[in-house]
């Protein structure tokens, strides 16, 4: 395997610039990292076959092609599975031209054994397909298939496929694949082109796209290479026109990345900008291989396209990864002077820095790497540091221009010792690439001077830190405490509203200059979580803040009590940025007047908001107190004592029943009358025991009538008897 691609292990490549400038805040000189190991691991992750084989021939080809370009060793089982898929597609008469196309493409990489008869069958099928083709995709697949079979057109491929082509030559006896009616086919494909450089998929479909343009270029390149006789050059030159028109519609990001995008609103087969740009690059690459290179693109276009592909970073989708890698391979494909080499303008060289944060304490050296897009070595060149400027200022360069030392072992250009004039801070370094050999300047495009933001960080010395309470009117020092900002300090102070608080410290850079951090904040936090933040300003070399509490009482919402003091000092280039709780101050502020502003509400703690509520149990009414049962029974016994006394008294009086009527009739009524009274009394007992009022009243009514009747009879009898006695 003659891989021209020597991959260097690129160490420490962390973080590609995000693809879009809108996501990036660095307006200056964004630069991209070339393809690296993270692409390789992403490729292995994304192209992971299910149960050893890929879902489709297209995916198989994409996986194999990506692995091939990235130099990833293909696992034997992947190859076996791919060969199985390929031979199935090639052997089957039901496979479509698309399947055949991708089968042949995949086969050009894995070199499976396909017998001659199958090749003959495919050839006839593809030839008929070319003649029957009506849409762009029909042409694309069938002509693409024929091109793949045609072995003499191996130069059409990037060089490392050449070997496979030669291998295929041995397999197939039929080497003279050619189109007799090439002009005719060229015209019928050309008929899909539109005036704006875009193409249509078929004559029925009015929508045109740049994606289709890429496919068309690839198809036409195939037609040219398959033509049995020389094609009319005017045809090819009209195509050059189309290409330049297409490039008029190229779109641009602010950082110079160029891409194609189809603005189809609801096209169901709308491709993203990556797929579209990739298709165009593939088409141009193929077309450039068969034309005489009269249309070459300016180098900055190539660089812009390369920036676009690299700017994507590591795509998260297998198709996107294939498109990115394949297009970059196309952009790089004329390396090492391939015969028909002058393919697409020039080869972009990618300039990158493994580190842009340089620590003065660690004495890192400034390193620069120059690669091709796929990460292989650049031709001999020198990187020159032209100037270094403090960010944002337009001053003269801080350094004299000097060349970086090339280390062949690591492939890095080093600037071992930073110039003495470079202190901590953020700078813009300007580099220039000088190619050693003049003829390389025609082949490679470097993109002029490179501006790179560089951060030089170091340890900042903190001195003379102190916290002081001052008396307001006199300015005399009430309390003074030294602070150790490097370690822990816990001061406790107290002040009233007539006093002042002063915090001061001094910062110096390693070179002994005064240092001004971006963040120097003093924070006072009251017990009730109300915070007050002050920017610590600098007066000369000293950082100092004076808080006059008299002017701040309103701002402090008249809240007396304990305030925690926190000091934050930090900067981009300060390696020992710090956040220190210095201590606390007890403030005694006056009582708030009526219309004093209220402190703002503080957000509630989310955890305490959702705690379960306390349980509630109902308190039942307590039952009334009752005497003991024995006591009640004893009193019930007492109530019968008067009855006993009454009975005893009657016996003592000597009562008798001599007046009881002796006649049968009155005696019967007398008995009935007393039985009636007894029944009423018994009814009372039953009323107590079980009966309710309604039942009782009913029975009382009946008994009442009976009693009135018998009572009247006996009482009138008794009255008559006693009247007789009196009168007698």
């Amino acid at each position: 395997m003659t891989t021209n691609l020597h991959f260097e292990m690129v160490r420490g490549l962390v973080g590609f610039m995000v693809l879009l400038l809108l996501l990036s805040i660095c307006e200056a000189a964004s630069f991209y990292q070339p393809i690296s190991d993270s692409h390789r691991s992403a490729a292995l992750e994304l192209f992971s076959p299910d149960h050893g084989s890929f879902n489709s021939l297209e995916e198989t080809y994409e996986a194999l092609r990506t692995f091939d370009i990235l130099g990833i060793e293909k696992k034997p089982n992947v190859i076996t599975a791919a060969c199985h898929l390929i031979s199935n597609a090639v052997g089957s008469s039901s496979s479509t031209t698309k399947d055949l196309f991708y089968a042949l493409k995949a086969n050009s990489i894995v070199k499976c054994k396909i017998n001659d008869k199958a090749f003959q069958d495919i050839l006839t099928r593809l030839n008929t397909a070319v003649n029957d083709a009506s849409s762009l995709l029909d042409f694309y697949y069938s002509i693409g298939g024929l091109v793949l079979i045609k072995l003499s057109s191996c130069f059409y491929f990037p060089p490392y496929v050449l070997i496979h082509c030669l291998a295929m030559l041995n397999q197939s006896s039929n080497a003279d694949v050619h189109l007799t009616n090439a002009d005719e086919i060229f015209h019928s494909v050309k008929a899909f082109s539109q005036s704006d450089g875009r193409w249509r998929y078929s004559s029925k479909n009015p929508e045109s796209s740049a994606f289709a343009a890429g496919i068309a270029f690839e198809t036409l390149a195939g037609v040219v290479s398959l033509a049995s006789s020389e094609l009319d050059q005017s045809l090819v030159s009209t195509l050059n026109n189309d290409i330049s028109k297409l490039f008029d519609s190229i779109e641009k990001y602010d950082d110079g990345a160029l891409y194609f995008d189809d603005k189809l609103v609801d096209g169901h087969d709308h491709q993203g900008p990556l797929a579209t740009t990739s298709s165009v690059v593939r088409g141009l690459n193929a077309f450039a291989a068969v034309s005489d290179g009269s249309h070459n693109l300016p180098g900055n276009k190539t660089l812009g396209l390369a920036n676009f592909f690299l700017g994507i970073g590591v795509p998260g989708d297998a198709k996107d990864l294939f498109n990115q890698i394949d297009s970059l391979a196309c952009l790089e494909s004329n390396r090492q002077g391939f015969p028909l080499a002058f393919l697409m303008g020039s080869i972009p060289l990618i300039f990158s820095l493994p580190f842009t944060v340089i620590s003065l304490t660690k004495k890192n050296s400034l390193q620069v790497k120059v690669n091709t897009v796929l990460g292989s070595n650049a031709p001999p060149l020198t990187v020159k540091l032209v100037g270094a400027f403090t960010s944002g200022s337009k001053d003269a360069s801080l350094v004299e221009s000097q060349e970086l030392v090339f280390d062949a072992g690591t492939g890095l250009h080093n600037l071992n010792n930073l110039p003495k004039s470079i202190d901590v801070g953020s700078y813009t370094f300007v580099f220039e690439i000088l190619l050693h050999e003049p003829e390389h300047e025609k082949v490679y495009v470097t993109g002029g001077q490179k501006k790179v933001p560089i951060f030089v960080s170091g340890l900042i010395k903190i001195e003379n830190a102190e916290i002081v309470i001052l008396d307001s009117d006199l300015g005399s020092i009430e309390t003074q405490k030294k602070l150790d900002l490097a370690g822990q300090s816990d001061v406790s102070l107290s002040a009233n509203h007539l006093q002042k608080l002063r915090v001061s410290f001094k910062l110096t850079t390693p070179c002994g200059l005064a240092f001004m951090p971006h963040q120097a904040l003093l924070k006072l936090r009251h017990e009730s979580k109300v915070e007050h933040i002050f920017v610590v300003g600098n007066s000369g070399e000293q950082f100092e803040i004076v808080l006059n509490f008299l002017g701040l009482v309103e701002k402090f919402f008249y809240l007396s009590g304990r305030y925690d003091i926190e000091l934050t000092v930090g900067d981009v280039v300060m390696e020992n940025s710090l956040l220190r709780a210095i201590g606390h101050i007890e403030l005694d502020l006056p009582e708030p007047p009526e219309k004093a502003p209220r402190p703002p509400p503080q957000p509630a703690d989310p955890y305490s908001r959702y705690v379960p509520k306390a349980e509630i149990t109902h308190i039942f009414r307590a039952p009334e107190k009752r005497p003991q049962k024995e006591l009640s029974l004893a009193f019930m016994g007492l109530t019968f004592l008067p009855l006993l006394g009454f009975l005893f008294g009657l016996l003592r009086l000597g009562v008798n029943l001599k007046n009881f009527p002796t006649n049968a009739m009155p005696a019967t009524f007398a008995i009935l009358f007393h039985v009636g009274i007894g029944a009423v009394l018994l009814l009372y007992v039953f009323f107590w025991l079980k009966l309710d009022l309604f039942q009782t009243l009913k029975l009382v009514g009946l008994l009442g009538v009976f009693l009135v009747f018998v009572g009247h009879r006996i009482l009138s009898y008794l009255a008559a008897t006693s009247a007789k006695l009196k009168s007698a």
Partner: protein
Amino acid sequence: MGKLWVISIASIFMLLPFLGNAFSPESPTDRRVLVLLDDSAIKSSHSIYFNSLKSRGFDLEFKLADDPKIALQRYGQYLYDALILFCPSVERFGGSIDLAAILDFVDSGRDLIIAADSSASDLIREVGIECGVDFDEDPSAMVIDHIGYAVSETEGDHTLIASDDLIKSDVILGSKRIEAPILFRGIGHSLNPANNLVLKVLSASPSAYSANPKSKLSTPPSLTGSAISLVSIVQARNNARILITGSLSMFSNKFFRSGVQKAGEKTKHEKSGNEQFLTEISKWVFHERGHLKTVNVKHHKVGETDEPALYRINDELEYSVEIYEWSGKSWDPYVANDVQVQFYMMSPYVLKTMSHNKKGLYSTSFKVPDVYGVFQFKVEYQKLGYTSLSLSKQIPVRPYRHNEYERFIPAAYPYYGAAFSMMAGFFVFSFVHLYSK
């Protein structure tokens, strides 16, 4: 006949709003998501995130934010169940979408994910304000942290923050701990203290501040320390869920894949916590976690099974309810020890924590208070990250009937005894009076 036709059409239109409900317990698996982008390249650069959503069964539809044909609803029926706004710089949406349309969308119980960044437009900021978060008003401000930044050899401006100050909630972030810090680069926001529906999920460290990294700081930054929220969530009262973050790049493949080392720490994590964090939180936003439903709310007297029409004071009763949580595929039993039921009339008379059988059945028993009136069984369940449950069932409570009181009270026996002895005396006296000579 014509009249009938008109009525039937009218009734269909009246029912339509109920047909297209957002997350419905009946068909929770049907989720269509509209993703609005600034640039179609985001589809590829953020594909890991999108693919993780697709693999969980969401039907993503990508549109450019200024596409003139986008619409959230058609003929009064919503076309999507959730909206993802990955279009920080959009000044005006295309089609019929505007601020009010988005708010209506949320008001209908649908979910929303907003990612802003330093190019955030006024429109996106307004959507944020409506959701209870205020992005830093300074358009050039970013969150900077000189202590908690992510170590990077190529990016030295300390706006790439490695944060690990996460909310402590398994339901929002999943039960697996997020080990690696989360990478963030973008703008900070603060929460409206008056809004208690919005929660800070990822906050900045105490040393962070929000300022323009390129210009000198002359006035105190409006947002500092852990008051800066990097990622916030909202759960509306109708259970619509919203995720708001000031960083679009935290969703990107680059951040998902990149390793992370927090400044000042020795450990270098192979992969940032972004993928785990954002995947887990998207499960929450899309109701794959923390969405509760209740079924079989029952109550009856102890020892019986039928639900009575009313209770008598001092009855012993049993109350039970089944609670299930949606797991993205099925309704699983919900297990917690803090579900409470109230027996409520103007104020709770009884409030009791229910016990459960670990299969979703929560039950308790208690005695009806000795106060009669119209009571309610109330379950008002609110827990961090869960949808709130609010059940109430009305039940009257009556006092004792006249014959339900105690009949023979020993303390009253002396009175009975006196009455009966009186009656016996009367009976005897009636003989003595009438017949004695």
